[in-house]
């Protein structure tokens, strides 16, 4: 066992030891999914009747749906009845201070550059920490409240702001949207809720940190961000999971609502456990992320996807209002036996709407990386513009890169530009760096990070540093 592996395992052990000791015993539902389980989840969370109805409707829809098979993914069949749909600390830990947070979670935060320790907390980032789909703590609540910003766990929002949740839940991603969204709608456990009132510029970055911990459980988070007219928010999401030999299903839904002239910037650094060289273990990550941008609003997705055995993810923007702007910046890395099928959908409905897509796919080892994107210009979208750039970088001979851009234009005035490139890290680039004293691995990581520069530039500082580090770590052993 390698040092790193041991470290990860030790950390994992530690979390069970200290994080969820006897009286915080993990409460796990028996494997399997039926209406009873949906009712159980809703009851456990003490949800209002309307939400139970909503879940049941989603469950019914899901049962009638088929798993999508159009993605370029080679997946072991998922046995939905073998998964447990509810895992949570039996009692929510009561935290007097941030320093009571599980040391392992804190360590993980430290590594993400987002310390949870009270003295070390980043002055400008509020964090919602979610372990096994249950929110364990949210920092800076009071500061945010002063500005009128609501930032809390989804469960709390259901209790404290039911009207807001009810109005927006499912408004961007309807329950029947797709197989995994329907599943999530039926069984979601927790997630984050943000509400930025009219005209408010959120005084700090909001961040949710997801950590999968339990074994044999599915993870289904729900995130909802509502930015009222003329408001502004930057939101960060980080994800990690311990090493496990079996695959774990993660099916999240994120909905963003940007009202007139509002701006939402959503950044993700996803580092779920990717499985090993032989494809054993790793997270199956099926995520539906979508935002609706009203007039003059802007929604910007930035993602750095280095983890997961399978990534199936298309953060999208519905450019509903006139002059709305949608952006998608993505770095997706597939090494070992990882497979990523990821991209975006930009749906132009309003006039003078603009979207831009910058996708950087990196394939190493036996990894397979597919960019799949849709740019759709509706008849109503006069003078819509899109710019798409898809660059693929291949490291080695056994990996693959694929670019599948769909363009559907119903308005002849649309201006669509698409550029694509595929390159390899040149021997001459590596040699040049080595002649300047760098090791081959350092050189490789520098060159790959350079390839991703345009995307990293979109990330908030702390995340950009973390993303670079992650990329380097993920590429270790890919050289030569």
């Amino acid at each position, binding site marked *: 066992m390698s040092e790193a592996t041991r470290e990860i395992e030790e950390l994992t052990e530690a979390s069970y030891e200290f994080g969820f000791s006897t009286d915080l015993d993990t409460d796990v539902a028996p494997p399997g999914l039926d209406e009873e389980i949906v009712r159980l989840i809703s009851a456990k969370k003490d949800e209002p009747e309307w939400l139970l109805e909503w879940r049941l409707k989603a469950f019914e829809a899901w049962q009638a749906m088929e798993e999508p098979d159009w993605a370029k993914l080679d997946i072991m069949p998922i046995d939905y009845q073998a998964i447990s749909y509810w895992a949570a600390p039996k009692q929510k830990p009561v935290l007097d201070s941030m320093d009571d947070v599980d040391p392992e979670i804190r360590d993980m935060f430290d590594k993400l550059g987002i310390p949870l320790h009270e003295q070390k907390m980043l002055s400008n980032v509020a964090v919602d920490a979610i372990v096994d789909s249950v929110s364990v703590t949210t920092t800076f609540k009071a500061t945010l409240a002063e500005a009128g910003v609501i930032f809390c766990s989804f469960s709390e929002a259901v209790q404290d702001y039911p009207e807001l949740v009810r109005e927006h839940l499912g408004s961007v991603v309807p329950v029947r949207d797709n197989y995994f969204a329907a599943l999530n709608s039926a069984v979601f456990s927790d997630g984050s809720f943000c509400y930025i009132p009219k005209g408010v510029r959120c005084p700090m970055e909001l961040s949710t940190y997801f950590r999968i911990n339990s074994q044999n459980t599915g993870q289904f988070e729900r995130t909802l961000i509502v930015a009222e007219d003329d408001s502004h928010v930057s939101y960060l999401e980080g994800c990690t999971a311990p090493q496990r030999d079996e695959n774990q299903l993660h099916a999240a839904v994120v909905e963003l609502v940007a009202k007139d002239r509002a701006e939402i910037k959503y950044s993700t650094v996803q580092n779920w456990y990717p499985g090993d060289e032989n494809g054993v273990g790793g997270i199956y990550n099926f995520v539906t992320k979508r935002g609706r941008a009203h007039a003059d609003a802007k929604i910007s997705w930035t993602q750095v996807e280095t983890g997961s055995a399978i990534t199936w993810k298309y953060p999208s923007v519905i450019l509903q209002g006139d002059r709305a702007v949608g952006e998608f910046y993505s770095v997706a890395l597939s090494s070992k036996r990882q497979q990523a099928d990821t991209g975006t959908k930009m749906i132009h409905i309003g006039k003078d709407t603009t979207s831009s897509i910058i996708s950087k796919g990196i394939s190493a080892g036996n990894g397979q990386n597919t960019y799949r994107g849709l740019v759709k210009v509706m008849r109503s979208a006069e003078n819509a513009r899109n710019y798409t750039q898809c660059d693929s970088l291949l490291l080695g001979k056994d990996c693959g890169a694929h670019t599948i851009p769909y363009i559907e234009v119903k308005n002849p005035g649309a201006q669509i530009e698409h550029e694509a490139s595929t390159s390899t890290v040149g021997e001459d680039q590596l040699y040049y760096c080595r*002649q300047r004293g760098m090791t081959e691995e350092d050189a490789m990581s520098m060159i790959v990070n*350079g390839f991703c520069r345009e995307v990293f530039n979109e990330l908030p500082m702390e995340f950009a540093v973390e993303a670079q580090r992650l990329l380097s770590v993920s590429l270790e052993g890919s050289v030569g």
Partner: protein
Amino acid sequence: MLHVENLTAAIGDKPILKGVDLDIGEGEVHAIMGPNGSGKSTFAHALAGRDGYEIGGVATLDGSDLLEMTPEQRAAAGVFMGFQYPVEIPGVNNMYFLRTALNSVRKARGETEVGARDFLAVAKQAMELVEMKQDFLDRAVNAGFSGGEKKRNEILQMAVMEPRLAVLDETDSGLDIDALRIIASGVNALRGPDRSMIVITHYQRLLDYIKPDFVHVLVNGKIVQSGDHTLALHLEDHGYADFVNHDLDDAPEKPLTGAPS
């Protein structure tokens, strides 16, 4: 400080260097001239450690066997190569690249790394040498640089790395006269008792600015003539015809009219 003996290099079955002998003393500047395709760049790469050659013979720097070392180990030992075709690295900040390079060799030598602020001072000084502006450091390594800028960047890197042995491969090619002057004065400023240089060039023009202590003529993988800088002047007048028109194995024996012996 550099000792090269019967150095051979082949790609596949194709011999390119056919036994090069060269000794360079402390602080000396040697020019290597020769027609296109004679093996000048191959010689530089053989010293710098590029993959892909079958190498034979001996090359030692300060007594250490260069041929045993990886490219990065040679860099740490003090070998710097100015590339004939500097490589573009999109998205990598030039300043960051330079600092990483310097700190990589420092680390390999067990020296402390240079922090961002101290490095800025080092870089500024180096930039004055090649008359570059600050924004140069903010651009990506060689990406979109003009030919002249690329070459200046090589000299900038040399100034920062402070090598024991600099091998400059056609640093003059593709430069207008002003750029040539800037580069030459940069190189001259970097000459010193602890730094030796091999200046590879196709034209004698550069040697008007950088006066070499010795000139060697490399033809078809062998040094066929050595002399002082007047040899370069002879080549200017006569070209390489004296060498390439003869059976090359005989060339060194033939007396050269007008050339120093």
